[in-house]
């Protein structure tokens, strides 16, 4: 039986990674400089073009406050709506149950599965789970595809390969596709991956994605994307499965649209190329008005709602704000630690808000503790966050819990003796 790691061993491993793979990596730091400059420039253009976006923030915050305070009621309403739409809906209590449900939906081994980028599937480690069950699973978002082929983990909530420079990307894609791709031609890299994945899309049995919001009244998923991979994932295979955290549920279609437009605006887009609204399986009523399922799109629509601690967290007044996060990733472009370490700051979810997600949802207090102490508590993420999430305040409160549980690093325990002389 494997011996449980001590908290100091966890700290040492974490620091070795965040410093060795992150802070000491000059290429990563350069990639982050470029990403930050592009983010700021794009956001400026977007806010100049759509100045009303600034006003989205307050309303989005109110929608999330209401939704998290009424989470269980909204889950019920969503499940009713999906069933009404001839979809299948499940509420998974944890990651294991969610993966098991999805594996059952996929069925016998050796299925080809195409996946859209989704942090929730990262949380449950769904790709790895399905691969272990004997399926062929392909990430189809370009950044996430690069994460998969280099056996890494996402380095940002929306830009999973933000740590890669074009030079590294060219080398990697050349290796996978067997084409010699120069770093100055990003369009050639994109075309090579498109050609590689196209065959996977057309032969896939199941498509899996996450969602940016769900409207409880209609059971509609809202999915933002730019590449078109979700469009194919959600329409070509016979079965479409969405794995979505319950915190994404908001009361109405209007609310859901408000949340997604706030997300994309602060996530770096003037306007995304695609916003999908999916409310059930493909259907037609063209012959005698008889509704028949499985026209051109998937015959089966499955929504797996993931709890994994979210419902309990929604009742915690000190920390429920964690669930307001839309995963737009804006905060990370302004985080002094993210600037030097990208997603190595974090375990499953990146950044300061990610450390909180790791602690309460994805990994537990002990494993998340080192990242919680990496936060510089500078509060800059709150200012950049469209929902004004006070991550630093929650980090400070969580540290008191970690300290009481014995999960603070030794250096913090020494502050008490050496500086406070207690």
């Amino acid at each position, binding site marked *: 039986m494997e011996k449980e790691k001590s908290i100091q061993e966890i700290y040492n491993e974490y620091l070795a990674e965040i410093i060795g793979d992150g*802070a000491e990596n000059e290429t990563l730091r350069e990639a982050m400089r470029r990403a930050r400059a592009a983010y700021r420039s794009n956001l400026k253009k977007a806010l100049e073009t759509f100045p009303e976006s*600034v006003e989205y923030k307050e309303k989005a915050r109110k929608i999330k406050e209401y939704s998290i305070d009424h989470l269980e009621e909204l889950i019920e309403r969503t499940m009713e709506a999906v069933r009404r739409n001839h979809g299948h809906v499940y509420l998974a209590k944890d990651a294991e149950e969610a993966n098991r449900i999805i594996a059952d939906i996929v069925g016998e081994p050796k299925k080809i599965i195409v996946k859209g980028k989704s942090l929730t599937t990262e949380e449950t480690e769904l790709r790895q789970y399905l691969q272990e069950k004997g399926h062929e699973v392909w990430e189809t978002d370009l950044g996430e595809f690069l994460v998969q082929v280099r056996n890494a983990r996402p380095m940002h909530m929306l830009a999973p390969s933000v740590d890669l420079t074009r030079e590294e990307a060219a080398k990697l894609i050349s290796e996978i596709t067997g084409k010699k791709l120069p770093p100055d031609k990003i369009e050639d890299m994109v075309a090579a991956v498109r050609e590689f994945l196209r065959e996977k899309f057309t032969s896939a049995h199941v498509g899996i994605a996450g969602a940016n919001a769900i409207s409880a009244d209609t059971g509609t998923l809202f999915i933002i994307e730019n590449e078109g991979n979700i469009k194919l994932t959600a329409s070509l295979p016979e079965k479409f499965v969405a794995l979505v955290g319950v915190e994404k549920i908001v009361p109405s279609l209007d609310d859901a649209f408000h949340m997604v437009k706030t997300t994309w605006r602060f996530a770096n887009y003037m306007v995304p190329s695609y916003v999908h609204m999916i409310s059930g399986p493909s259907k037609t009523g063209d012959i005698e008005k008889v509704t028949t399922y499985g026209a051109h799109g998937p015959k089966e629509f499955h929504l797996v709602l993931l709890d994994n601690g979210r419902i309990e967290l929604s009742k915690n007044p000190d920390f429920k704000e964690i669930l307001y996060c839309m995963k737009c990733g804006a905060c990370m472009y302004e985080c002094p630690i993210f600037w030097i370490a990208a997603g190595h700051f974090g375990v499953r979810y990146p950044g300061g808000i990610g450390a909180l997600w790791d602690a309460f949802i994805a990994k537990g207090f002990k494993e998340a503790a080192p990242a919680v102490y990496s936060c*510089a508590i500078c509060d800059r993420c709150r200012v950049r966050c469209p929902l004004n999430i006070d991550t630093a305040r929650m980090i*400070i409160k969580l540290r008191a819990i970690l300290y009481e549980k014995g999960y603070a690093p030794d250096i913090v325990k020494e502050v008490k003796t050496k500086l406070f002389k207690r």
Partner: protein
Amino acid sequence: MKVVLAGRVNLEHTGQEDVLESIISLMNKLGVDLAFIENEVVCMEASINLGISDVAEELFREFKEAVEEIKPDVVVSAYAAGVAKWKRDVPERYGLKLPVPYLHLTEFLADEFRKRKPNLKPFPHRYFLQHGCTLGRKLGKFQPAREVLSHVPELEVIEEDYPTAELEGMDPAMFNSCPAAWLNFAQPELGDYAKENYVLDVLVPRKPEFAGSTCANGHYGIRQGLEIAEIEDIKPLYFTQILDQVWR
């Protein structure tokens, strides 16, 4: 006027005696009766920020009792954490309240300069000012530092800009980058890289001759960052060091 200067031991502990000397000298020039807390501990505010909850209340209670004994008109500190903690956290968590106001040094000096209108010598240099994260972003106190430094003739104050601040109706200082000094307490080995990066990405491109933060903790971060990055043509200078030099 009797003033308790909080945070003296922090300045000594971090080797910022030059900053401490400038503050004391400036206070003397203002004719302030300066007092210190005997047995003050280094950065008791860290007890809250690091989660050392079993001693936090005791530390703040002892500080309050020491202030009550000294009976000052005001408590002043070059650090922002004390201002913030006594404003919200300490009253809310422990029900403790100081008998007198607790001001940041920039606020205190802004008030004093308004009353006295000091006649200062010119300081014709480019000075980069970082608004301490707690004092600026959290407490919204940007103007006192700007006001104090505006009294110095020929001083060119450079602040960090932010491309969307105006569009979002915010003071650009709300987005001031952070020299990550708080990491000294928890993950100093990581913090060194963050400080170096701050200097290289934020300070160096703006080409100041001197740089400093409104908060002595941020200032320490900048100071360390300049050392780690081996940047010699930007000198760390706390704003009180400028004021002390130019006082007539």
